[in-house]
């Protein structure tokens, strides 16, 4: 079966820039890996970092967030909030036991179809290098922690 090597990558894209950029990539027939599934958001500022955490803990292997370039937000300042929140969140990921390479945020405008193709291709390769996200059942996680602490 083709595509069996697909990993689960979820994208949160702002409606005005990056979603349009992904459309532009499609209109330009710019080939991309098929792993990514895009969820449309009104603005990158709408993204609660906990969405990203929930997505990764629910079975995704990677999460990509993309919005308008800073200073070019459709709502004037939403992506500034996004940038601050997501940067802090990225640094928090190791604490959650998640490789920070599984999450990236970037800026792609509605005219940047080629840039979107590069972003998707690079991020998909990055996730494939990391492989599927390790999954533990809660019990296993406890055993793992106990084993590590020598108990």
């Amino acid at each position: 079966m083709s595509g069996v090597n697909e990993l689960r990558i979820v994208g949160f894209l702002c409606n005005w820039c990056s979603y349009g950029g992904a459309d532009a990539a499609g209109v330009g027939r710019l080939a991309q890996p098929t792993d990514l599934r895009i969820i449309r958001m009104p603005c990158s500022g709408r993204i609660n970092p906990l969405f990203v955490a929930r997505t990764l803990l629910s079975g995704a292997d990677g999460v990509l967030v993309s919005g308008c370039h800073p200073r070019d937000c459709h709502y004037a300042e939403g992506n500034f909030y996004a940038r601050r929140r997501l940067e802090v969140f990225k640094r928090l990921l190791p604490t959650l036991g998640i490789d920070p390479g599984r999450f990236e945020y970037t800026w792609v405008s509605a005219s940047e179809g080629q840039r979107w193709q590069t972003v998707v291709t690079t991020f998909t390769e990055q996730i494939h290098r990391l492989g599927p996200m390790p999954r533990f059942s809660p019990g296993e996680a406890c055993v793992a922690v106990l084993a590590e602490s020598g108990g």
Partner: protein
Amino acid sequence: MKIGVFICHCGSNIAGTVDTAQVARTALEFPDVAFATDTMYACSEPGQEAIVQAIKDHGLDGVVVSSCTPLMHEPTFRRTVERAGLNRFMFEMANIREHVSWIGKDTEANTRKAAELTRMAVEKLRRNMPLFAKQFEVNKRVLVVGGGVAGIQAALDCADGGREVVLVERESTIGGKMAKLDKTFPTVDCSSCVLGPKMVDVAQHPKITVHALSEIEDVKGFVGNFEIAIRRKAAYVDWAKCTGCGLCMEKCPSRKSLDRFNEGVGTTTAINIPFPQAIPKKAVIDPAFCLKLTKDKCGVCAKICPTQAIDFKQQEALFTEQVGAVIAATGYDLFDISKYGEYGAGKLPDVITGLQYERLLSASGPTGGHVQRPSDGREPKTVVFVQCVGSRDKSVDRPYCSGFCCMYTAKQVILTRDHIPDSTSYVFYMDIRAPGKMYDEFTRRAMEEYGARYVRGRVAMIYPKGDKYVVRGADTLMGTQVEVEADLVVLAAGAEASQGAGKLAEKLRISYDKYGFFLESHPKLRPVETNTAGVYLAGSCQGPKDIPASVAQGSAAAAKVLALFSKDKLENDPMIAAVDIRRCVGCGKCIQVCPFKAIKEVDFRGEPKAEVIETVCQGCGLCTATCPQGAIQLAHFTDNQILAEVNALCLA
């Protein structure tokens, strides 16, 4: 809930690489899906009718269409479900064309992806609520940014349609690039005879206010209710008193001021009215060259001005205008030819731009319409024109065609022969692009009737030899090297986005491409609209274009504004935030982050609570992501809906 799912073939656009029938079969297994089918063209009339019919036949109360991007046809299908009696927000779209079928050829992977995106849309729709638009007042004034021919046309059409227009222009006069042209192609009409009367109409129109020497400082608000902060630069002349008599220009002893209107060909006086037909016809002092302002000497203009209009202490002013719509018409600037070092551009005095040559040809130009070399004033007998300088050249990051240079070069060739009958013109070109009405005929006239020597090939270098320049290039049709000894070289400098265009776009919250040209909402369906409601585009700010196209866009943008203003009230997009008063703790964080001041604090039984002003909220969802209680939720982008989409993708 009963959901109907429609998987569009889009001819072979989707069906070519997605098994749409399979996606429809899979969709039947999704929760609440009562009906699923594939359809040839969902957006066509029979396609839409089939949706209406299915809603009636199966008693559906929500519809998912999996087809193209929602940015294109979401409004279309919202109207379709509304026709069948549903609320238009009981509809969701899955993008299986731009995001699936067009970016991969693996049918199996595409089919699975299309099914998953459809499932995501179904899960979202299951949590949709019917929404109803609210009405709000619209300010029926329009702001036009840029007073070139596109902005002038837009302003006149809006004003003739009965709307008040505020026209803001960066320079001290409107007219833009067209005012600098001598003649226009393909009719060889006098440019100022075409544009001049229009400029006078602007000045005399009771509904148009012109703010020259002004720039947009800040933009607040949204469609129907923009608040525009405008900065007027200091002219050092009280324009209320200035009559434009020009006496000051005659007496000003500082004659070395950069002549911006004449594109730096020659110099002008420190106090200046750019050209005789200027609108407004008011003097401006160049503070870099005025002896009074630089050395506190002179002041002759103040002494002789019959109306005492000179004001050396004038400061720039900041003021606001309230408008309901904005037309951006900021035009273009010329590519900086000095980046072509091999052409000696910027160093060799007789290597000039097409626009500088235009000033040499113009009867109101610095030479009175006599073509003279800038270096020694001699009449050139051999003129070489070089096309595509800063166009179609990846090495200078200008891969696009500027569109109008082939035509204006042909015009300049014809005019050169008219001015200097015993002259010879050479044109080095890559391709002749003349796709307009009477355009190709025009370029042929330049070659056949006016005897211009068109050489197909790039110029490699230009260097001085005696008082002439050697232009060395290739003739790719003959397969030979060519050397021409020229008296004057005219570079057809390409068009690029107007200086500061990016900054204006950021203020207007519209998108622009990597070259700074503003992005239209859709190249074919919405060519003069932007993705920001109430902001429209006209002329070269959207991409290089010639005068006929700029004027057409100016009128088109005006038509859009007049249509917008034809309603007394506008309807908001009801996908806005709402506060659950039981969960709100009145912390006020949402009030702080809202970019539109759309949330206010209200008192509810002695407790502070947040409340959304429904017609002001623009639906960005910043507050929703900020609220620590999850008390403020953006309709159709609630936490629950987004997490349901996540679950549809990850857990299913």
